[in-house]
């Protein structure tokens, strides 16, 4: 009975440990090669002496690594991720804003990709070996193989005249009403979301197809067929319901690559989100921002994985929670 509770506790522990590892690794990554970090300081463009001093203080390179680590953890516990070199604002504030811009755009694309991908994969599996299946698989594979940044450029090239070519809002819209603002944001969101959706779609369609094929070979599908149920009912109530277990796991695992795509897509469309924050942090060598953004992304992915684990536990009646 309490196997379920045990599992939840274990998953929670793993998630917390993973986040702790991410935090520690984040600390180490920026310090383990102090020589490089110091030499890189000189490459910060337009850096004043004061800024370089601040930076040295930021990294606390004169103190021992243990002391630095404790200080780092203490600051982190207070939500302090340092200050951005680029605009002098606290990193946490910058990232909060960026995350708020990223989430709706990514969510829209991902949800569309999941729905379309599952539908396509199911159709392919049900029609396995037919021309439909072949066409769907080939197109899923092709879409999967196209680099996200390239798809973004192509869409900008083809539809740049129709849709805005970048940014999140129209800067020339003076004092828009909330409604106008929403429409404006959605309008700007269309292309980046579409690219997020397209690049994920192929992957989801392919993995759904495989999961469905595995399920369709199970005995209970034969039982369902012997019961005279319609193909639609067999597929929906018997096959898909079981296939959703592996599918949900695989989708959760793909979140890491979603985040990777976001960096590229936001860069192409100048979407002021967390992915673009990483890009600008890299180009302007804004280390506190880079460090903060990486940490936030890792935590977001770990948390999403954790949530999907919990959903999995709910989906599978063999595990009672």
């Amino acid at each position, binding site marked *: 009975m309490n196997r379920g509770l045990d599992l939840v506790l274990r998953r929670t522990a793993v998630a917390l440990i993973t986040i702790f590892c991410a935090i520690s690794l984040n600390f180490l990554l920026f310090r383990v090669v102090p020589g490089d970090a110091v030499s890189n300081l000189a490459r910060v463009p337009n850096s004043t002496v004061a800024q370089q001093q601040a930076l040295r203080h930021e990294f606390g390179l004169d103190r021992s690594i243990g002391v630095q680590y404790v200080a780092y953890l203490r600051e982190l516990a207070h939500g302090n991720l340092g200050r951005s070199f680029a605009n002098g604002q606290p990193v946490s504030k910058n990232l909060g804003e960026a995350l708020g811009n990223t989430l709706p755009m990514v969510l829209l694309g991902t949800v569309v990709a999941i729905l379309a991908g599952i539908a396509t994969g199911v159709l392919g599996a049900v029609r396995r070996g037919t021309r439909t299946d072949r066409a769907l698989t080939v197109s899923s594979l092709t879409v999967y193989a196209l680099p996200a940044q390239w798809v973004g450029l192509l869409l900008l090239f083809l539809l740049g005249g129709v849709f805005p070519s970048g940014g999140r809002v129209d800067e020339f819209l003076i004092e828009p009403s909330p409604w106008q603002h929403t429409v404006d944001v959605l309008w700007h969101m269309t292309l980046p979301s579409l690219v997020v959706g397209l690049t994920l779609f192929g992957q989801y369609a392919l993995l759904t197809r495989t999961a469905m094929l595995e399920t369709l070979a199970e005995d209970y599908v034969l*039982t369902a*067929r012997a019961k*005279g149920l319609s193909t639609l009912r067999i597929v929906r*109530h018997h096959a898909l319901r*079981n296939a959703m277990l592996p599918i949900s796991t695989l989708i959760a695992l793909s979140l890491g690559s979603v985040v990777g795509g976001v960096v590229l897509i936001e860069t192409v469309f100048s979407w002021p989100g967390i992915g673009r924050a990483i890009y600008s942090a890299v180009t302007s060598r804004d280390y506190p921002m880079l460090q903060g953004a990486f940490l936030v992304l890792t935590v977001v992915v770990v948390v999403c994985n954790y949530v999907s684990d919990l959903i999995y536990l709910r*989906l599978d009646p063999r595990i009672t929670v």
Partner: protein
Amino acid sequence: MNGPVLEVRDLNVWFDGPGGRDVHAVRGVSFDVRPGDRLALVGESGCGKTTTVLGVLGLLGATASVSGSVRVDGQEVLTGGDAAMAPYRWGDLSIVFQGALNALNPVRTVGSQIAEVLPRDGRVSRRAALRRAGELLERVGMAARNVAFYPHELSGGMRQRACIAMALAGEPRVLFADEPTTALDVVVQAQILELLDRLADELGLAIVLISHDLGLVGQLCDRAMVMYAGRAVEEGPTEGLYTAPRHPYTRLLYEATPVLGADRPLRSIGGSPPALDVPLAGCAFRGRCPDAEDRCSLAEPALTPVAPAHRAACHLTGRTP
């Protein structure tokens, strides 16, 4: 009604094999099932018993092709495909599969799986359907509250009972039972057989039992068809098959079956059945037959009457005691 419910004539099943070498899995099988009949299909695994049943019920997959005739109440169903079979499925012909664990969908409750095949005259509410499912469970010796259980929460014997209850939901006239007691311990096996026996009596069900176990067959059925390499090699009353088997295979199969209290050595049949992806010349059993003669490799013996209601396909029938 005294006409047969089910008439199977010259049923053949092929499976697509690699390189166009199709496997001829069922070769010219014919049998009738009348109301209240107790027929058994007996043979080693791979002899085509299960394939025969799947062919009769129209449950074969896309890699199979068939020929012959299957009639339900005189209506041809084999050549008409799924549409022709649909009205009889589960309503007249239902089946209990082997391995009760996988025959039930692991993520749905037992009750919902029974309820989904209940005949829906007018608007039967979900609640009423579940109540009816509970009644069916009681009929097979389970508690009605088991409707809310998932398959993994039941023991192997209980799952098999639930499968039987599900098979009864469509009020069938012929119940196929494919190795219904495999993987159950002896006591539970006896209970399941007893249950099938009682249900057949109470409901006037005809039963077609598929089994490799001659002992089991004798307890439940009054007529049996012994299959070897996709062909019926002997057919007759179970009593007659025991006391006077006319085909060497039946005799050896009987000698290979342990019977409690029987004072005879247990023997196994040497060798293995022939490959079915090449044309067979002569008797399929001759390679393993202790009595094989030259003529056995020349022509395939046909089923010929050897006693009242008893036929065998062996060139040496006259000599076999």
